[in-house]
């Protein structure tokens, strides 16, 4: 069972109060993009063993979307951060590096 800290209302929310939103930081290429780029946007996911970034919604609480970084092996939660960003905050990346030296997730290390 995951317990994620909602960065909007400050509640440590139980997983049953949350709705999963899949992988974080997906980039939708513009209208001129190739079919391959659109295929990747729709279907290609990291599905990592280890550090992962996800979107969650505090569905039964304040209703807001946010991001979470966690480990898919140990279920350790590294942190949560607001939805209005295109990449994880630097201090969170540093905290993950301290715990999982050499980790890599897409272009983030």
């Amino acid at each position: 069972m995951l317990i994620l800290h909602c960065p909007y209302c400050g509640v440590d929310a139980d997983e049953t109060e949350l709705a999963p939103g899949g992988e974080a930081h997906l980039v939708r290429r513009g209208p001129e993009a190739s079919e391959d780029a659109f295929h990747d946007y729709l279907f290609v996911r990291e599905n990592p063993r280890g550090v992962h970034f996800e979107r969650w919604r505090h569905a039964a609480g304040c209703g807001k979307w946010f991001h979470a970084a966690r480990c898919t092996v140990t279920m350790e939660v590294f942190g949560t951060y607001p939805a209005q960003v295109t990449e994880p905050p630097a201090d969170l990346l540093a905290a993950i590096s301290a715990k999982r030296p050499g980790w890599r997730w897409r272009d983030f290390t």
Partner: protein
Amino acid sequence: MSEPASALGGAVSEGFARVEEMPPRGMIALRGDLGSGAVKAAVKDALSLDLPGTWRATDAGEAAVCWMAPDELLLMSSYAQAPEIARKLGHFLAGEHHLVADMSDARSLFRVTGLDAREALAKLTPADLSPGAFTPGTFRRTRLAQVPAAIWMRDDTVFEVLCFRSAARYMFDLLTEAAARGGEVGFWPD
């Protein structure tokens, strides 16, 4: 005009806590920038109440302001006054980015009373209802068993529960079962 009716006609059940469906109450959804002076002033103008902090409610008599989300409040009043209050709010906030809607008929309201009312509710929700964390004046949206709901602690022995009206029967049965005699937990001594 037709008379407003609650979903269950004021159903009551008695267990180690009393569960009672409340009569219709005026409820107005207000969305906007809660940090702006305009929203604060509009609420003050309409209900003479200050904005509550995160997961809190302020109230006086029938009027109440409940924190629903970082950009949403739920304003309570008598059922009859709600349309007028919504109109006043809309007028006051003209020109500001906002949403005001009279939602009085959208929800059902229950009152759970008794020394162990806290324990009856704690059986149903993942929210932390411990006396240190959930204090009088706390208003928390969460989940009760299978449905979204909000729990408002009015005082030490009185809780109010809001849920969507379509789930009223489910919620009443759920609370009745959780508060049934013989089901006392005794986790938090009075």
